[in-house]
């Protein structure tokens, strides 16, 4: 079973979520993220959901944890690429973005980081 890849672009770590993440993979991902954060000193984590055309209860829960755990990473978490149909189902499951910043596309998220984080 392969790990969910974590890609680093400039100051951000990008995690592309796909439809069949297992419990174990997700757990590993979280550990992996924490380690990579420490190693690279990244300023933000971006979860990209554009590869998710549909959503099931498990993935919804993954999202929920991503949103809730945002603070655990001690780094800003950005969410991008959620499809309309997926967003509606998530809303139906009472998952709200809380104070996680969301974006239409990965480009938007990266542009936001550029404007926001780099000047500091």
């Amino acid at each position, binding site marked *: 079973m392969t790990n969910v890849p974590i890609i680093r672009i400039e100051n951000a770590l990008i995690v592309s979520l796909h439809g069949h993440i297992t419990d174990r993979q997700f757990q590993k991902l979280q550990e992996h993220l924490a380690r990579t954060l420490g190693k690279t000193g990244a300023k933000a984590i971006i979860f990209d959901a554009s590869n998710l055309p549909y959503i099931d209860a498990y993935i919804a829960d993954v999202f929920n944890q991503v949103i809730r755990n945002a603070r655990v990473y001690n780094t800003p978490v950005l*969410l991008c690429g*959620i499809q*309309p149909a997926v*967003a*509606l189902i998530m809303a*139906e499951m009472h998952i709200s973005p809380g104070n996680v*910043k*969301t974006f239409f596309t990965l480009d938007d998220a990266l542009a936001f980081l550029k404007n926001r*984080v780099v000047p500091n």
Partner: protein
Amino acid sequence: MVRKKTISLKEIRQLVKQSLNEILRVTGRRLMKRINFEETTITFDVLLSKVKEVFDLLLSVLDTSKEFDLSIAEFQPVHRQLNQLGEFLTQHNLNLTTIGELNLAIKDGIFAVLPKKIDLDRDNTVRLFQIIFKILDQLTLATFDSFREHWEKTILAQQQELLEMSTPIIEIWEGVLAFPVIGTLDSHRTQIAMENLLTKMVQKKAKVAILDVTGVALVDTMVAQHLIKTVTAARLMGAECIITGLRPSIAMTMVNLGIDLNGIITRHTMSEGLKESFRILKNHSYTDMIEKQDD
């Protein structure tokens, strides 16, 4: 002299044909009395010409000297004509009562005129009216059917039109979509409309959508849930939704229903919603969200 011989269909036909003008006069008088022509787009003359058509049909049915049944191929032309009659009545804003009135008026005319024309014994009189009225009633029933069919078609077409017209999505500013909701919101309609809105937002890269509910007369729990769901979904996707135009009575209802509008941006009018959306657009790329996250 009272005749004893059974009256034939041919004789009935002859009789009706001969006294057609007299019958029409009586029928016309009754129609004049019973139908309020001011409420319709039809004139008395046109309606009377339709009555004449019905008589033509009656005569043609009597001509075939067969048991009258619309499902038989031989009566297809009659069926077609009745269909047209039904459509005609629908178009002229007439109702089912009018068809009933037409039937009664024609019967009135026949009742008043025919017995005077021919001397018949009791059995033959019964037979005469039975035959004519049976055909007339069947014609009426078929007209009812076609009327209802056309009526339903009209309503369906209007519904479809309304569905398309009532959920327009307008880009009123770069990155701002306006979504005026008009009419009653039912689950099915809302589901489609909301999905359309969200898809359009992604397409147009609109950061803000203004959901204007000025045109919504009633909000119940389901509708409120849908609204909130859309707002949440939009925020998950990285956009904001502003709800505008909530009437005082609707606001009261929502509070009474215990619907939590916490975290949802509401504004009184569309213009204020637009103002708010400019503020959001301005802050969108330089927002201090990230600092807020670290709180």
